[in-house]
């Protein structure tokens, strides 16, 4: 078979695995959250049932073209992040379309879905959507600052912008992981990760009991199904990105599953413990310690 078609099929299979793992992860996390508060929690297959139902609903209303495109852009953000991310180190099948400068592209894709969602939710016209969007963009801008500083620090440290090479440089053993060789960048990035996953204390964007659900207030049925699919992909892909950058990458799927789960669980763990920040508090928070750590990480490697 043609090289490009084979590659495409393998990537599609990877996307399928990642989507399902993301949904299983989200239901597992919700079950853990339920156990923390003494409940049994949702069945493990609940995300698939929800998704089936959402895709079968009759769509009710249109608010214009951008309203349709918002979830599509959001989904593209998650899929794009996945496409250019090498999932398994050293494997041709699971390295997707990673290339020598993929780190910069992935930083861009992190924001891409957010911007698409902002346009779509704005067209929805619900006031709470607009509030959620403005909060989300304000918070995301500040999340990007420590994140970008950490990435620049790593790029200086390893003299490369290719994620595959960064992973390759960490293969010497447990103590060659970036978390030991560059702890400040790891600290900055892991703190900004809390905001990127949108769990409490940084979940004011969707704040279910203040502004009903934020940007997706008007989204229903298929649109909401898109957003949920994207969440599953995005969470795994972002966790995999952090795994590649800071925790030595993965050489097989089991390692990837364990590591992404632990990285995702870090944000859930913090969310279970801390209450929600107001938007100006979270903006200030990201610009203090995480940014300071990021600057420190760059200064050390200059």
């Amino acid at each position: 078979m043609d090289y490009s078609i084979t590659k495409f099929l393998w990537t599609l299979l990877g996307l399928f695995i990642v989507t399902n793992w993301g949904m299983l992860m989200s239901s597992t996390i919700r079950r853990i959250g339920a156990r923390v508060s003494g409940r049994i929690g949702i069945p493990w297959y609940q995300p698939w049932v929800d998704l089936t139902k959402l895709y079968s609903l009759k769509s009710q209303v249109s608010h214009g073209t951008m309203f349709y495109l918002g979830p599509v852009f959001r989904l593209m953000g998650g899929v794009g992040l996945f496409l250019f991310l090498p999932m398994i180190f050293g494997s041709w099948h699971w390295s997707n379309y990673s290339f020598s400068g993929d780190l910069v592209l992935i930083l861009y894709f992190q924001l891409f879905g957010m911007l698409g969602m902002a346009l779509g939710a704005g067209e929805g016209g619900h006031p709470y959507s607009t509030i959620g969007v403005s909060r989300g963009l304000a918070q995301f801008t500040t999340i990007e600052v420590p994140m970008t500083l950490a990435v620049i620090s790593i790029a200086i440290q390893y003299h490369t912008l290719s994620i595959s090479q960064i992973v390759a440089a960490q293969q010497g053993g447990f103590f060659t992981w970036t978390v030991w060789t560059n702890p400040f960048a790891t600290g900055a990035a892991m703190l900004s990760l809390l905001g990127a996953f949108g769990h409490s204390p940084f979940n004011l964007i969707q704040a279910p009991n203040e502004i009903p659900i934020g940007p997706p207030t008007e989204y229903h049925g298929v649109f909401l199904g898109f957003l949920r699919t994207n969440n599953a992909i995005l969470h795994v892909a972002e966790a995999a990105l952090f795994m590649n950058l800071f925790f030595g990458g993965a050489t097989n799927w089991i390692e990837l599953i364990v590591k992404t789960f632990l990285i995702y669980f870090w944000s859930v763990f913090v969310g279970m413990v801390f209450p929600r920040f107001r938007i100006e508090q979270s903006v200030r928070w990201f610009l203090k310690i995480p940014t300071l750590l990021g600057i420190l990480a760059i200064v050390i490697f200059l």
Partner: protein
Amino acid sequence: MEKENKPQDIPVVKTKNFIAPENEKRTVTAPDGSLIEVDPINDYFCQERPEEYKVKSGAVEKFLNWARAESLWVLGFGTGCGSIEIPPLVTPRFDMYRYGVQMRPTPRQSNVFIISGYLSVKTLKRAIRSYEQMPSPKYVIGLGSCTINGGMYWDSYNTINRLDHYLPVDVYIAGCMPRPEALLAGFAKLKELIKAGKAEKANEYIRNLDWYKANQKKIIKDWNMPDYNW
């Protein structure tokens, strides 16, 4: 310290007008200076009649019905004293999440509307708007005897007596007030109905839309919204 109380400006006495001020027909000036006629009720709201959703046949419909039954998303809209019976459902004692029942904050994302107790005319108007904004297939649970025959408010000037004259009800839960266990039993009954394919009241509502609308308009005197709220 004495706070100075200044009399407020004498308000303009408004005539009884059932169209909200922001929805009134008016002329606005565009940024380039041209005048534009604006009629928000007709411009911003869809006046189309709704259509029934297609019921697929065979195994597909069975599978979809199973998915719909296992994923009931409840609209967080409490209308009467029964709304105090819903919060315990998310506590460890009752825990409705294990049955696939979840709360959603907006009508666009929910399937199940619990009318929890007495429904005054003012709330009925909001309930109709919320119900019509939910995507089909959708289900209504009438909680408490107030929704069945008016309950203890049966002779009140402002609460409805029979919910099924205004919204299509799938499951009634009797009692005043029913305990959260009764609500869980109601969810179980609703699931049973959905899985058997009998919970298609949303289509019935659209088929008999004229009758429902006549009943609704009989008591909602200030009808200032489109006939069907998309």
